[in-house]
């Protein structure tokens, strides 16, 4: 069996598992109607309003920083593979890259992007 087909198989199997489980659950489970049952749970008190409103995502700076470092990781992985063969030259090449990156982290740190507000 060539190897890449496993992804299609696994994808279909995830579908089978979720659909099969849901169908069995729907067939076996009891059903009852109640006016309050479908309301969103708020620790027992009546639900107030919707949750689909504007809210402050305190983590958005973290998400932007993550993007920067994740792209950096993608760029570093090919270097990591051939580092052994390159020896000291590979070290020189990547140290510039890493220094720029660490400067970026230091800048974000200094500007307070890593603080919780």
């Amino acid at each position, binding site marked *: *069996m060539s*190897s*890449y*087909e*496993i*992804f299609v*198989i*696994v*994808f*279909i*199997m*995830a*579908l*089978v*598992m*979720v659909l099969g*489980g*849901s169908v*069995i*659950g729907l067939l*076996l*489970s009891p059903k009852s109607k109640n006016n309050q*049952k*479908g309301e*969103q*749970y*708020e620790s027992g008190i009546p639900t107030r309003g*919707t*949750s*689909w409103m504007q*809210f402050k*995502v*305190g*983590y958005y700076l*973290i*998400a932007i920083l*993550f993007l920067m*470092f*994740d792209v950096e*990781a993608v760029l570093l*992985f090919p270097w*990591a*593979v*051939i*580092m*052994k*063969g*390159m*020896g*000291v030259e*590979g*070290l020189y090449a*990547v*140290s510039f890259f*890493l220094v720029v*990156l660490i400067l970026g*982290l230091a800048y974000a*740190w200094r500007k307070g992007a*890593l603080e*919780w507000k």
Partner: protein
Amino acid sequence: MSLELIDGINKIHEFLTSNIEAAWVVSLIEYVLVGLGFLTLYALIALFLIIFERKICAYFQCRLGPNRVGPWGIFQVFADMVKILIKEIIPLKHNDKLLFYAAPFIVIMGSLLTFGGLQFAEGVHGVDFNVGVFYLLAVSSISIIGVMLAGWSSNNKYSLIGAMRSGAQVISFELSACLSMMAIVILGGSMNLSDLMAAQEDVWFIFQSPFTVVALVIYLIAAHAETNRGPFDLPEAESELTAGYHVEYSGITFGFFYVGEYCNLFINAAIGTLVFLGGWQAFHLPFAGCEGFNAVMDAIPSYVWMFGKTLLLIFLSLWVRWTFPRLRIDQLLRLEWKIMLPFSLANILLMAIWVALVK
């Protein structure tokens, strides 16, 4: 076991090709068999880990844990499985139906795709290709999309807060996990899991350099945080958010999240084992005169090594989970961005220097 398994697969293949003319039918049957095998292994591991965790956490708290159904309560988990199937799936009034029911599928798909990239014993693996480690890192973070969808589509304040926390936490700790594995890629010189296994035949990576130990510690903390457990269980902090992102899920739809969580626990431990602790390789002493010891170690089958080491890491994870109190979200993000990220960057640089100068 692995060789017998390969023999068995070959026998099935010969049996099918000798009896069925059309090649595509043979392929189809084999795909179905492989898929069912994966699904069974996945479900069995989840069931085993559920009872394992319940027993272990009971002993940590000086309780007995489940002990009524079967010997030592080991059939409790099957009773639970039946029970979760016959629980009502409560239809919600004001939620986004499509996203709400797609979320468990994405969580399960993410962890099954990662599961397909693992190696379980010598020669027993779904796929073996040149970007193995990178693939594992990439697909293991698909699940977070499902978690975010679940939190948003439930239209519930608790699940929204839980999903946002979960997103921040998982993407943050993803970086450290990624960078600690990069240290191993530098040392091993390949991203292919089979090459990494071959490089660990004599000495596991953990014993090859002092910086792999640092990488392992960073990886274990990051992987533990990525599973949303233990001191890092802010996304489902039950005392503040009741259950976090899956508060509105009931019956089997909740069960999918539960199974996904336990399988992610196994997957993270298995990746740690494969990359740092030698995977299915036996423990060898690389000195002269140790041939007898090495032969004894080789006599233990490779799947015992793999699952033994994985269970050890899982036990470590459970130990941490049931020992430490929960962190606050700002402490958690400080731990990642101000402590672990600088440490992992420095570790990569030091590992590169080690490889360039020492090796």
